[in-house]
């Protein structure tokens, strides 16, 4: 792994740790300046630990052509960001994330967020994003919009860079294609710049895949710790993170739970699981979809699953999304499937993993008690964004093994 990728993974996890620190400081009445000192110390120590223990598996260099391509890509991304960014972000930023941040930025009244009902203001949403925003707001003493934008922008910029750095080692041409598919993708950029938490979740899913790949190559258990922490952060940023954790657990069951690894698995996930446990058990109302089933309000789950019209509607949204917004992903997936089935005779385990997460998302649509048309229209494309970078990475790593003329390959 490139050192810059490792630094970005650490920074992403540190942002999530800030939100955990903020949550516990509100519970325990810890002053923000003391919290800032504690978090700075935790940041320095964790960074040094990670860098020291992964020294043998990280590389501090990048080829000159790759650097120039990356520079061009980042310049393009910067220009696109400036054009697309909106002052207050999109509906989710105003209606959910920054709204909730304002409560958490006020230690005397933050619990008032829980006065809202579950379906109205979603106080059940985990704090990964808005907790970090409110940490900065508390520290700076004002509710600057630079804080939520900065966090969201970090994920938006980091994702294409991480993918490029990891794929360019194998194939510069494929890495360049993947870079372009992110930095000029208006929907991906819009989600990130206008402060949807989906981009942050996609960052953690990508981090988890990069770390598990690195662990499988090297056997260094610090990568497992980072993977586990990334999964915890995914769980702490959006409810959908539970599917990522469940599917990772299923696909890497032996890896995570083997006797020699368990300490690292638990160590990485512990802060996030602890924070989520306290939040869920002590404060958050039930999720609006889950609440309907818990209270027996919707007893017709069988009728929902057997309703053919629901399948047709979901498929039509899928088709629309992959034809219009993610058409290149569809094309690359077809090429990947063709190559893997015909040449490699095997699909990557991580591809099955992502397909499994996607299937879970589709199943939630199938059983949602809400209006399905509305639910799909307001969230389907964003769910694809959550998996889009990881899918590009998995496909890119496989396609980089196809031999192209030498002029397209990296001269490391």
């Amino acid at each position: 792994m490139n050192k810059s990728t490792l630094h970005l993974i650490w920074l992403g996890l540190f942002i999530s740790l800030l939100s955990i620190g903020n949550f516990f400081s509100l519970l325990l009445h810890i002053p923000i300046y003391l919290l800032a000192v504690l978090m700075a110390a935790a940041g320095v120590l964790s960074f040094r630990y990670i860098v020291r223990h992964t020294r043998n598996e990280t590389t501090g260099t990048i080829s000159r052509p790759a650097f120039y391509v990356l520079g061009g890509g980042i310049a393009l991304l910067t220009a696109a960001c400036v054009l697309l960014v909106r002052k207050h972000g999109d509906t989710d930023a105003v209606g959910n994330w920054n709204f909730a941040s304002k409560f958490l930025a006020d230690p005397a009244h933050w619990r008032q967020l829980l006065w809202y009902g579950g379906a109205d203001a979603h106080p059940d949403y985990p704090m990964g994003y808005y907790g970090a925003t409110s940490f900065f707001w508390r520290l700076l003493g004002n509710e600057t919009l630079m804080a939520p934008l900065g966090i969201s922008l970090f994920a938006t910029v980091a994702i294409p860079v991480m993918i490029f750095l990891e794929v360019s080692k194998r194939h510069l041409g494929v890495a360049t294609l993947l870079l372009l598919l992110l930095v000029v993708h208006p929907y991906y950029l819009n989600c990130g710049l206008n402060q949807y938490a989906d981009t942050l979740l996609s960052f953690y899913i990508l981090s988890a895949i990069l770390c598990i790949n690195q662990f499988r190559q090297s056997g260094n258990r610090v990568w497992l710790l980072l993977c586990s922490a990334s999964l915890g952060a995914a769980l702490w940023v959006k409810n959908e993170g539970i599917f990522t954790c469940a599917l990772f657990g299923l696909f890497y069951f032996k890896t995570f739970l083997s006797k020699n690894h368990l300490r690292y698995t638990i160590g990485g996930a512990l802060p996030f699981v602890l924070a989520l446990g306290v939040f869920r058990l002590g404060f958050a109302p039930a999720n609006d979809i889950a609440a309907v089933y818990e209270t027996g309000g919707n007893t017709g789950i069988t009728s929902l699953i057997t309703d053919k019209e629901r399948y047709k509607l979901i498929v039509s949204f899928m088709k629309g999304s992959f034809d219009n917004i993610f058409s290149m992903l569809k094309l690359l997936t077809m090429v990947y499937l063709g190559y893997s089935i015909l040449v490699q005779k095997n699909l990557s385990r991580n591809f099955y993993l992502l397909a499994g997460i996607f299937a879970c998302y589709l199943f939630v649509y199938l059983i949602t008690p809400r209006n399905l048309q509305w639910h799909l229209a307001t969230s389907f494309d964003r769910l694809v964004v959550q998996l889009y970078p990881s899918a590009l990475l998995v496909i890119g790593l496989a396609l980089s093994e196809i031999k192209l003329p030498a002029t397209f390959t990296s001269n490391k």
Partner: protein
Amino acid sequence: MSSKWVNILLTSAFGAVLALYYIKSGRTRDHVDYMEQSLSTLKKQLPPDSRLQYLGLPLDSLNGWETYLIARYILSPVVMEKNTLSDTALLLFRNEADAAPQYIAEGAQIIWEYHDSIYHYVAIKQKLK
């Protein structure tokens, strides 16, 4: 090349976007800004632990739900509840839609009935000077 250069490149891009956003956001005003100006007086009057009743109406270019979302964002940590007639204030959005007269009449009646209390009528305009 050293990965330090990648980090410098990333930090520069990050700083450039934030700096340009800072300049751009200082020069533009959107619906949130307009509503913030409309609601500033009410926000000052309300204790932060209030529950605020509201009767929501859509503005011309925004639907009612978005208007409600922006208002509750601006007024937080005051909690907004829809027309339950039990607490401190009333917020009424103005618009030209068909439903407006009904809501305005309803709001006027509530203000009349609770005139000793601190009910408010707030008209939010599309653009303020």
